[in-house]
């Protein structure tokens, strides 16, 4: 029952780690979820799939940049 702040921190860290080590070419392209295949009109609302992929890609970019030192324990 007791979801402590520490376990919340662990969950966040593990999820971020999972997003970081997810390899685009090997896994996402097989499913058809790669980032440069989206055909999206300019005036439409972006679909849920494209938003999720954008989120994953941006998390990976931020984590791999120089700001990763802040997150390291």
């Amino acid at each position: 029952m007791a979801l402590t702040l520490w376990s919340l921190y662990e969950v966040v860290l593990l999820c971020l780690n999972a997003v970081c080590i997810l390899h685009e070419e090997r896994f996402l392209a097989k499913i058809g979820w790669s980032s440069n295949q989206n055909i999206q009109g300019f005036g439409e609302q972006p679909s849920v799939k494209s938003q999720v992929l954008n989120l994953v890609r941006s998390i990976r970019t931020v984590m791999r940049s120089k700001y990763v030192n802040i997150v390291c324990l």
Partner: protein
Amino acid sequence: MNFNATSGARYPAQKGSRKKRVSDTAAINAPAYPPAYPPSYPPPYNPFASAVPGTVPPNMSAYDDRNAVPPPYASSPDYSHMHANAPPMDQGYSIPGQFLNEPLVANVAMQYGQALVGSGRQLVDRELEKYIPVSRLKYYFAVDTRYVLKKLGLLFFPFVHSDWSVKYEQDGPVQPRYEINAPDLYIPTMAYVTYVLVAGVILGMQDRFTPEILGIQASSALAWTIFEIAVELITLYITNIQTNLKTLDLLAFGGYKYVGIIFALLLSILFHKTGYYAGLIYSSFSLAFFLIRTLKVQVLPDGSSPHHNDPYTHSSGNKRRMYLLLFVAGIQPLLMWWLSFHLISPPTPKS
């Protein structure tokens, strides 16, 4: 240190001497010991000088000993290069404490010290604003008694309220003090603290109380609230819904469930399991109604906007918004049950 309550009565002389010392340092005209900065005019920048010249910072003891009591006549040649409107120096000041008794120097020293403190405080405020939006937080705590009472009534009986719109000023929503439909953070904070205390009381009534569980309850509830807000923010980003809701608004709406939890827990004290579930079902129903009505104004587009002006919101956008509303309103009863079901007392008495 004596932590007993009667220690003050047992040693009245000690208490009296403490009081006398406070009044001594408050009186600038008669400091018990000389101040921290050297006797030159105007005084140089000394980061350890306090605004009240009578007190000495504790880490300046070494610095004090050097110029604390200068020789009586060695200080008088220093005053020869004084300013023209300085007081006459032929009175032979022996310690700098008496020099400060002159009203002009005392005024300048006080103003200088206060200017230092003011600029330091401004710097600290500016730096703090970058990490915690203090000015934004003040909006959520601008409440008064009438608002709190009406809002609590609205949380428990939202069925007769008709106008759910929020009035806006030119740069933001009106303060909660003047607008009953605006979210605030006062009620959620108070309800959260009360929830932890009520949980402690209930566990104490069941002989299950230890001091650690207060911290466990508090951090667990906080972790669930953070998790809920994070899920809501990610959902808002993924579904790309345009709304005026800020993070603190979501925090406010997530905190209203603690009022329902407290109501259900208090019923559980009187009527055990049936009372608890009855209170839980009623308060979750009314909270869901309240949230759907409030969020519908903020999230769903109102019908007055013309269609040709708005190519971005089509039917799928409305469907997403409706799903988000249902998700937010539906997760509240779930979390209310999860945060409190372990606290209800068993109906059978302990043998």
